[in-house]
């Protein structure tokens, strides 16, 4: 499939955001996250799955015709799919491009994996997970101090 054919399958958008370089298979999970935001309810969303990518082999991609992206959605993307590229589109042109990195802190985005952590007994308590050390994909719960991987945390996103 040529790049031009791909454009036919996911047309260019005039205004909005492209979430690119989503690892193949995670596109649906990212769509589910987007569905949590009432302010994005009216946005036209296009989902493309399993595109060829020179960098990744295969990738998913989402185009969102919306005026802005909620900051908390970006934080959740960093948890579920770090490394994705967010392109801000205006008048069919990319005006800004950022790569979502693994942050040093996840603030109240996920539940602790430790069932005996007080944050699971008192769910109103805001959780915090700090990166164990720079470059690591391991995070420590600020409350019970249990260490878990980024993938484990991604499986415990707060509803």
């Amino acid at each position: 499939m040529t790049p031009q054919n791909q454009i036919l399958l996911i047309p260019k958008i005039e205004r909005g955001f492209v979430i690119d370089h989503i690892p193949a298979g995670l596109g649906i999970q990212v769509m589910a996250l987007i569905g949590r935001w009432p302010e994005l309810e009216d946005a036209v969303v296009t989902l493309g799955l399993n595109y060829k990518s020179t960098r990744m082999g295969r990738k998913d991609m989402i185009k969102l015709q919306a005026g802005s992206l909620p900051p908390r959605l970006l934080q959740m993307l960093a948890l579920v799919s770090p490394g994705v590229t967010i392109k801000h589109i205006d008048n069919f042109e990319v005006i800004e491009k950022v790569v979502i990195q693994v942050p040093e802190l996840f603030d109240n985005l996920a539940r602790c994996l430790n069932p005996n952590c007080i944050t699971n007994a008192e769910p109103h308590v805001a959780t915090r997970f700090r990166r164990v050390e720079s470059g690591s994909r391991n995070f420590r719960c600020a409350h019970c101090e249990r260490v878990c991987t980024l993938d484990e945390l991604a499986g415990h996103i707060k509803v």
Partner: protein
Amino acid sequence: MKKDLVSIDDLALESILDYLDLAARVESMSGAEKASLLPGRILATLFFEPSTRTRLSFEAAMCRLGGRVIGFSEAAASSTAKGESFSDTIRTVEQYADIVAVRHPKEGTARLAAEISRVPIINAGDGANQHPTQTLLDLYTIRKFFGRVDGLKIALVGDLKYSRTIHSLCRALLLFEGVSMTLVSPETLRLPKYLMKAAAAATATFRESDSLAAALRECDLVYMTRIQKERFPDLVDYEKVKDSYRLDARMLEGVPGHFKVLHPLPRVNEISPDVDSTPHAGYFEQARNGMIMRQAIILDLLDARPGRSAT
């Protein structure tokens, strides 16, 4: 700014040494001097699970500093039994007390209390996570017996896998220079690998051994812990190992005069009562040091160190 003591990992070596020095200073004071330090101050001891030494030593520490104590010694005696959240209990108690010591079976409770409370929080044990006052009193005891912590050869014996006391002590010992730790435990209760790895970045070393007798010959002190029957899925395995880690006076024949036996207590049968009368038994003095170290901690967190006017 309010200070808390939640996790031994929050303390740099300088802060640990500062606590050891402060405890020594408190110990050298007369009873009357100590009793004048915290008049009118109130410590709340919130023990959501049973404890003898920790709770009583906190209470004795505060009483001997001239302060008073309020609190409860089991969850059933608190409003938790009526369904009150832990957060609400803390928000209520901070209205009555100047400082709070909390023990709770859930991990992370002390950190949460510290976030909520405007008065200092002391972690008196949160589930399997941390027990920092125990670690500080252990280090104080070791330094009192040996005059130093650096360079000591320490055998850690028993349940090294689940014991929060051992985990916290290991992490603190890694901060000192050249401490050599010999780990003696059943195969199923070995020290977690992540703690072993932490030694790579320190000058301390770990060595695993199956023989308590060999460790006694090679070390300056032995830190015993209880092997808990409930940790063994198969009780036959427990029966096999339970006496391999039992220390008696006969085994201590031939150890150097300075050799000490420590234990966080309660003991069950891992230290025979005949060890008590040997010059090597250090565990009851260790329990006494618990009160002294907790006095130092309370004074520090209330910004009421001796020689400084209390605020």
